[in-house]
């Protein structure tokens, strides 16, 4: 989790209006045109930025990748957030790991001599005492869409803009952050400290005092296309980055395939049932009155719904 290459965030200079590209994480910058020194401020403790999708024709991309004969069931764009937190971890650690005494048989010209063992030696004993001052970075996925490959989304080479709710919703839905930025910062600090101490878990005696300082977070909203497609008789979920087109996950939905088969193969049967139920209801309603036929219609509706979705 070393520090990654920075993304670029586009701003307008408040003095001359020129576009200024700022490297992520910077707190100040300078306008190249009017030479003014500028301070980057934010209200929530972490700047929120977004990237615009480079394509509004995701179906073309899907057909390019999977062929013209695929069936695109649905495709939608969702802005998925991820948070990059960098921090300097400071402090110290110290510990001791007991070794194991090893004694091996000795060897002579005629082979192994099991009667004489070698001098005992201590193997694997470790003593550590370190000062720590390290800058580390971690990427958090608040949506937890791991199975859609969100961890593969990168900021490298992308241009981000200051978050604007209105613009984002013009392109698609937006996944909101479930926790506060403070909670994400704490989570990230624990993860970074854990990264340092994990090498010493098997130590017999271990003490540390590590703290995360200079914590910086940026919340990126990256547009992702999520698609459900049918290709070669198989059903897939497919996600790709809407900025650089990078494929994230192509997941063969085995379970979905079986369920879908049930729905799609049995569709004629279903129409048959709907027709039969309709005729039966009209016959019943003429002989038993509207109230009862309404209740029966409700039951029939529920039965049809159960056939479609009851096992999801």
């Amino acid at each position: 989790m070393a520090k990654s290459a920075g993304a670029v965030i586009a701003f307008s200079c408040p003095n001359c209006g020129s576009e200024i590209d700022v490297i992520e994480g910077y707190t100040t910058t300078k306008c190249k045109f009017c030479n003014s020194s500028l301070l980057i401020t934010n209200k929530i403790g972490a700047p929120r930025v977004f990237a615009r999708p480079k394509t509004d024709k995701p179906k073309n991309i899907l057909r390019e990748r999977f062929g013209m004969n695929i069936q695109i069931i649905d495709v939608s764009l969702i802005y998925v957030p991820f948070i990059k937190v960098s921090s300097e971890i400071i402090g110290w650690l110290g510990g001791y790991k007991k070794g194991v005494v090893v004694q091996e048989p000795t060897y002579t010209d005629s082979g192994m001599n099991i009667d004489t063992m070698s001098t005992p030696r201590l193997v694997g004993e470790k003593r550590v005492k370190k000062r720590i001052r390290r800058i580390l970075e971690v990427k958090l996925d608040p949506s937890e869409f791991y199975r859609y490959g969100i961890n593969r989304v990168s900021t490298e080479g992308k241009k981000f803009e200051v978050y604007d709710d209105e613009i984002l919703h013009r392109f698609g839905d937006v996944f909101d952050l479930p926790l506060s930025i403070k909670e994400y910062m704490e989570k990230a600090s624990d993860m970074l400290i854990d990264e340092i101490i994990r090498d010493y878990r098997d130590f017999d005696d271990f003490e540390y005092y590590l703290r995360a300082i200079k914590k910086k977070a940026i919340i990126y909203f990256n547009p992702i296309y999520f698609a459900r497609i049918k290709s070669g008789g198989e059903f897939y979920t497919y996600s790709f980055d809407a900025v650089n087109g990078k494929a994230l996950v192509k997941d063969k939905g085995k379970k979905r395939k079986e369920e879908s088969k049930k729905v799609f193969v049995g569709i004629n049967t279903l129409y048959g049932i709907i027709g039969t139920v309709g005729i039966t209801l009209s016959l019943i309603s003429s002989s038993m009155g509207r109230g009862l036929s309404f209740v029966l219609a409700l039951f029939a509706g529920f039965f049809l719904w159960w056939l479609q979705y009851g096992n999801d």
Partner: protein
Amino acid sequence: MATTDIKLIPLRCPDCGKDIESGEDDLVHFCSNCGSGFEVVLDKFKKVNIIFVKPKEEFANKKLYYLPMWQILSKISINKKLNIDISQIPTEILANDRFTSFLAGLLKKEKPIDKMMFFVPAFGVTNRYQLMDQPGYLFTVKPPKLESDSPKDMVGAEYSLEDAIELAKVMFLSIQYHTDKGLMGLKGADITFDYEKARIAGIPFYEEKGMLVDGLKGYKIFKNALKDWDKIKAKLEKN
């Protein structure tokens, strides 16, 4: 409705209005014109007390560069009495009567509470910094006498007060790191730090053979232990 929680604002001194040139990672900014300093907390300016320190007379004719250090007064309470052998404490700490008596007093008291002044470098450092004796640590152990000087141009600070308080705690708890006979068990001591007041001290340094030497005690830092020293030097000399 459009939400803009991040914006660019001109970096000008809130006291005298002069433009301030700061480094990309600076969190505390100093005005070379009126000598005031301020932190930016979220989108608000927060004034920071500042003292520019006069160098010792023998260093006054050197070309001096001012680097910021946080000076933090903190109340320390040890909430559980510890059985610690003071003789385990390393010589550089024992050499200073004030610090030794502070620590010894703190550990012997029934309800150990005392005040201590920490010096924490606020300038950006590289990993080289941890390989040497740190002026912040040495200043804490042997505090220099600070005499106020007129405002100087100074490099911005990369560590906020909040970070500096954490660094001070690490410095205090690192006493056990320095002991030769293993760990002293301060970690399990349940120590409370109550920050009382803080200011930035602009400490004069001069260059000498790849090192920066402070103009108060003569402690040295490798030049390459400072982040972007050449850039900082060029900026300070330009002004």
